[in-house]
């Protein structure tokens, strides 16, 4: 997939020279007779043609199935690999539409995925969709060439079925790993309660074992979630819940986990119930707050701000730590983006972002070196009866 990144970089940075293929020579030769407006029109349309041809060449060049779509999701160009894989649809070649291949839900998620990346020209996005009972990972890039032309480039990668794909193994392993952990945890706690106050040192040690088991379970859970995301099977179940209550529950869990000595201050309140997957949003909050504590060892507080904006429920988590390097800020939500000092798998923020996106929400971060970081989660407010 690096090839797409490279293509996007060069095509957006490439200077358009007068001798580039497709540049309108005839416009240049007519000289003064052409009015400025017409010259501009023709230049623009020639540039559009040139860019479209570039995209078509790129599609033809790829070994994977790839297509270009117009803004109505009609397929305007495809390569042989696409025709081999999905082309036999009983329709003429020039009538193919992506709508013939997709169900409503997948189409909506593709649209959402494209909306999310619109602001950044160099970004592409990935999404898993179902085509003919197969899970296909598609990479999308929206080309806004000018106000009229809008092209979507779509490249497909099929997931191989069968028990031996990496993600399947992760899912299986993480479930099996939890079984012995359940036994270790329960035996440890039972031993601890048997000892009670008779041996304080031993119960302290058992408490530490229990904390490490929780950490291990956290890692196993993260691996499981990532395997689900890769398989396109990560789902959430939304029910009406109060964010105030959820924050309270999160703080209780943080307290039990004895992470740090920070005081966690909650400001503001969102009383109304909103549709969320309670456990998943709690997972996001736990991740955010425990990160805030972990990365501000010298600070004594973390602030949670709850605010209702006209359209969203907004949660901000602010720490007073050392902040995040600007070069790390852009990729902070990528998977396996480890912090060398603190360890861990580097999956927490990746999964958190996925959870928030599944809620149609947004998550972002601002940070100033030496002053700390602020993570902001915006969840859409839909009235719940």
């Amino acid at each position, binding site marked *: 997939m690096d090839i797409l990144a490279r293509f996007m970089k060069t095509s957006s940075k490439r200077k358009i020279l007068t001798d580039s293929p497709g540049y309108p020579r005839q416009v240049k030769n007519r000289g003064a007779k052409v009015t400025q407006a017409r010259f501009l029109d023709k230049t623009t349309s020639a540039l559009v043609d040139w860019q479209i041809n570039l995209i078509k060449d790129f599609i033809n060049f790829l070994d994977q199935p790839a297509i270009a779509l117009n803004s109505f999701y009609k397929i305007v160009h495809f390569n042989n690999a696409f025709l081999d894989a999905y082309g036999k649809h009983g329709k003429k070649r020039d009538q193919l539409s992506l709508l013939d291949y997709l169900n409503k839900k997948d189409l909506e998620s593709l649209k959402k995925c494209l909306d999310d990346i619109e602001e950044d020209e160099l970004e592409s996005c990935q999404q898993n969709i179902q085509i003919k009972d197969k899970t296909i990972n598609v990479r999308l890039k929206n080309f806004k060439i000018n106000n009229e032309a809008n092209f979507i480039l779509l490249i497909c990668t099929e997931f191989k079925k069968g028990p031996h794909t990496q993600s399947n193994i992760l899912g299986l392993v993480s479930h099996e790993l*939890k079984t012995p*952990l*359940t036994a270790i945890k*329960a*035996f440890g706690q*039972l031993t601890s309660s048997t000892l009670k106050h008779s041996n304080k040192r031993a119960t302290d040690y058992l408490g530490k074992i229990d904390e490490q*088991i929780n950490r291990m379970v956290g890692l196993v859970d993260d691996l499981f979630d990532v395997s*689900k995301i890769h398989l396109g099977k990560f789902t959430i*179940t939304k029910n009406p819940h109060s964010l105030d209550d959820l924050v309270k529950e999160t703080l209780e869990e943080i307290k039990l986990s004895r992470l740090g000595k920070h005081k966690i201050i909650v400001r503001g309140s969102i009383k109304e119930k909103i549709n969320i997957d309670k456990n998943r949003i709690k997972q996001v909050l736990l991740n955010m707050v425990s990160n805030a504590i972990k990365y501000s060892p010298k600070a004594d507080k973390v602030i949670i701000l709850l605010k209702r904006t006209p359209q969203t429920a907004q949660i901000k988590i602010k720490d007073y730590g050392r902040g995040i390097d600007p070069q790390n800020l852009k990729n902070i939500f990528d998977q396996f983006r480890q912090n060398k000092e603190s360890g861990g798998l580097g999956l927490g923020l990746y999964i958190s972002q996925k959870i928030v996106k599944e809620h149609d929400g947004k998550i972002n971060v601002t940070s100033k070196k030496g002053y700390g970081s602020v993570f902001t989660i915006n969840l859409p407010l839909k009235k719940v009866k």
Partner: protein
Amino acid sequence: MKIFVCEDEKEIAEIIKTILENQNHEVKLDFGGNKILESIMSFTPNLIILDYRLPNLDGEKLTKKLKADEKTKKIPVVIISASNYLEKVAIDSKADDYLSKPFNIENLLAIVTKYDSQ
């Protein structure tokens, strides 16, 4: 209280039994055999704790069966599993409660106490 525990992992089944017997509950263990329904009927428990991944029987299906039968539908069913989607499974199968593995002993006892007082 009479508690029926169905769990195929013997170590975990034994420890649940120990924890519950320490609290003076009467516990019957089952490791997920074919005759589980008969076993439940003859024990007439006040609470069923059920691993939802059993070798010979799907815990979700079993819960549905129990909840559909006049004789057993009033017995609270708590499903336990290491699955990350346990809440959804519990709702789908109409179980009364769920407990994620690994669990804290206090959480297990809290659930049992909740149904003991009902």
